[in-house]
C-alpha cells in the first residue's frame, strides 16, 4: 500500500466499540517495555486492522502519547487502518521478480482481477521480496506462497479461497 493511503485512518466503526476487547487482548503485553509496536501488531492480527479506538486504548495502556502511537502505526506498511479484503494478493515487485516478468504479471493479473473477480472482496498490493527469488515471479495469496506465478494460478487460488468462505 502506498504511504499516501495509509496516512489517513478511515474509521469504519464507531470509536470505542472494541474497547473492552482490546483491553483484554493487551492486558499483559502492554506492561512489557517497548511493546508499543507489538501491541499494534496484535490488534492488526486480531481484527485484520487497527481500529480507531485502538489508538486511544494503546496510548493509555502503554503510557505514550496518541501522537507516538499514531506515528508508529503509520510508519509500518503491515499495519492497516481499514479492514482487509477476504482475499489479499500480494505480488512481489522487487528486482529478482522483475527479471522474470513481475511487471507483466502485475499488469495481466490486474486485468484478470477486474474481469473475473469484479465485485468480489479481493485486493492486490505490491510487496518487496518474499524471499523466493529463484522461483519468481513470487506472490502471496492470503498465507499461501506461490512460485513461478501466472495470472491463471493466481486466479485459481483466489477462486478456491472465495469458494471456501
Amino acid at each position: 500500500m502506498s504511504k499516501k493511503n495509509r496516512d489517513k485512518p478511515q474509521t469504519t466503526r464507531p470509536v470505542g466499540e472494541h474497547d473492552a476487547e482490546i483491553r483484554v487482548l493487551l492486558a499483559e503485553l502492554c506492561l512489557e517495555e517497548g511493546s508499543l509496536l507489538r501491541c499494534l501488531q496484535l490488534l492488526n492480527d486480531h481484527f485484520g486492522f487497527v481500529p480507531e479506538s485502538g489508538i486511544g486504548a494503546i496510548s493509555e495502556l502503554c503510557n505514550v502519547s496518541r501522537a507516538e502511537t499514531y506515528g508508529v502505526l503509520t510508519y509500518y506498511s503491515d499495519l492497516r487502518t481499514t479492514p482487509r479484503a477476504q482475499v489479499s494478493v500480494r505480488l512481489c515487485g522487487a528486482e529478482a521478480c522483475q527479471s522474470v516478468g513481475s511487471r507483466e504479471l502485475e499488469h495481466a493479473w490486474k486485468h484478470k482481477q477486474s474481469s473475473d473477480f469484479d465485485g468480489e472482496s479481493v485486493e492486490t498490493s505490491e510487496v518487496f521480496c518474499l524471499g523466493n527469488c529463484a522461483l519468481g515471479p513470487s506472490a502471496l495469496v492470503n498465507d499461501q506462497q506461490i512460485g513461478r506465478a501466472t495470472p491463471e494460478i493466481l486466479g485459481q487460488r483466489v477462486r478456491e479461497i472465495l469458494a471456501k468462505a
Partner: protein
Amino acid sequence: MKIFIPCDTAAVSVGADAVAAAVAANEPGSTIVRNGSRGMLWLEPLVEIEIDSVRHAFGPVQPSDVPAVLAAATADCAGSDLYLGATDSLEWLTSQDRWTFERVGIVDPASPEDFLAHGGLAGLTATMKLGPQESISRVIESGLRGRGGAGFPTGVKWQTVAAAEATRHKGAPAGSPVHKYVCVNADEGDSGTFADRMLMEGDPFTLIEGILISGYCVGADTGYIYIRSEYPAAIAVMQRAIELSRERGWLGDSILDSDFSFDIHVRVGAGSYVCGEETAMLESLEGKRGMVRPKPPLPALEGLFGVPTVINNVISIASVPSIMARGAAGYANLGTGRSKGTSVFQLAGNIAQGGIVETGFGITVRELVTGYGKATRTGRPIRAVQVGGPLGAYLSESELDVSADYESLLAADAMLGHGGIVVFDDSVDMARQAKFAMEFCAEESCGKCTPCRIGSTRGAEVIDLIVRGVDTEANTELLEDLCEVMRDGSLCAMGGLTPLPVLSALHKFPEDFNLKVVPRKENA
C-alpha cells in the same frame, strides 16, 4: 520407507505440500520427514527416498508423479525420468564447501534429536570448554566477517561487547537489573537473498546454538531474533525450535550444566525494509518507528534499550557453531585475501538453476552464474547481474569475471552485500532499473536524512527527463551530483548506496538512457 519432502517456503511455493499429501496417500506406512531444502531450487519439490541408508533424489516432483516415483524407488530408481542420483553424489552439492549450511536439507528442523545426531551443540560444547575469551579469539582467528553486508569482523564486535560493562536500560531507575543483549538481524529484505530464511526454516537449532555461543562469549542474558513478517514459515519454525530448546534445557537456567543462563525471543517486523539496518532494527525492537540512529554510540556499547548489544546477521552467527566445532583454522584457510571462509551465495532472478551455493570466497561471479546457474531461465543472453541486493551495483556481462569477495567487488565499484546475485537477460531496460532503485529508496526511506528522503524522488524524476531527452547534459550532471549528495549525506546504506545501482546502470548502459557515453566523474 523414509521419504524426505522439503517444508522450505520455496519448495512449498511450487507444490511440496501437495506432493507430501500424495505420498502419504500412496504409501501410508512410510515415514515422511519435512526437511529443509538442499538448495537446488529449480528441482523443487525435490523428493528424497532413503534406501539402505542412502538418500536418492527425484525432482521436480508433482503430485501426479508420486506413484511412479514410489514404484521406481522399490525397484530400480533409474527407471524414473525424475531420478537424479544419490543426493550426496550430485555435483551441485559435492563441489560446494558447506559449513553454515552443513545440516540444511539434511536434518528434520522439528527434531532436536536429529540436530544432535548430526553434530549439533558440538560448537557450544567446545566453546564452553575453551571459555569466553579463548572462544572469541577463535572467532577472530577464523576471519569471519559480517555476512549482512557490512563485513565487520564478527569476533572483534564480540570482543567489544564482552569488554563492556552490563548496564541497566537507558532511563531505568538505579537498582534496575543490568543486561547485555544479542540481537540477530533476520530482516532479510534484499531482493535476491533467501539464505537467512532457508537456514531458519531448515536448521533452526544451529541459529539458536550460534546465539548461545555469542551470548556465552560476551556475557549476555537474552537474545532477540528480528524476523521480517514476509517470512511466516521461518517465524513459526524458529518459535517451535525455541520451545523445543527450552524443553530440552538448551535455553533457560544452567545451560548444559553450566552457570550460563540465557533465553531467546522472536520479534516480528512490520514491513519496513530499512529495519534491516542495524540501528533502525533496534528502534523497531524498542517498539518505535524504524528510524536510523546516528553512530556513535556504537550499538556494541549502547544498543538495545541503551545496553551493550551484539548485532549479527543470521548467516554470521549461524556460521560460528561449525567454526567452533570444526576449527577456526580450517575455516580461515578457505576464501581469498581478507575475505576468509565461505560465503553463502544465492543465485536468483532470471537463472536456469537458482539456489544456494556455499563455497569459499574467490569464486568468480561468472562461475556462479553460468557454472552453477547455467545462465538465464529464458535462454536469452545475460545482459546485467545485480550483486548484493537493491543497493548493489549492476555488473555488465563483460565484468562477470570479478572475484566474489568483499574487496574485489568493492574495487569494481560494487558490493557483496548479503551474497544475493540477480541475473537479467537482454530484455532488461536499465534506465527503468535505475529509476526503480530511486523509487524503492523513496518508498522505503525512513525519512531521517533529507538526501535520501527527497533526493530519491527527485532522482526518479531526473532519470525520466534524461530518458525523454530533456536537456540531457545538464540533467545527467544533476543526477550525478544528486547521487553524490545522497552518498555523502545519508546516515545509513539506504540513501548512501542507492547511487550504486543508479550510477552503475547509467555508466555501463548509457544507451538505455538514450545517451551515447556518460563519462565517469573523477570522484564519483
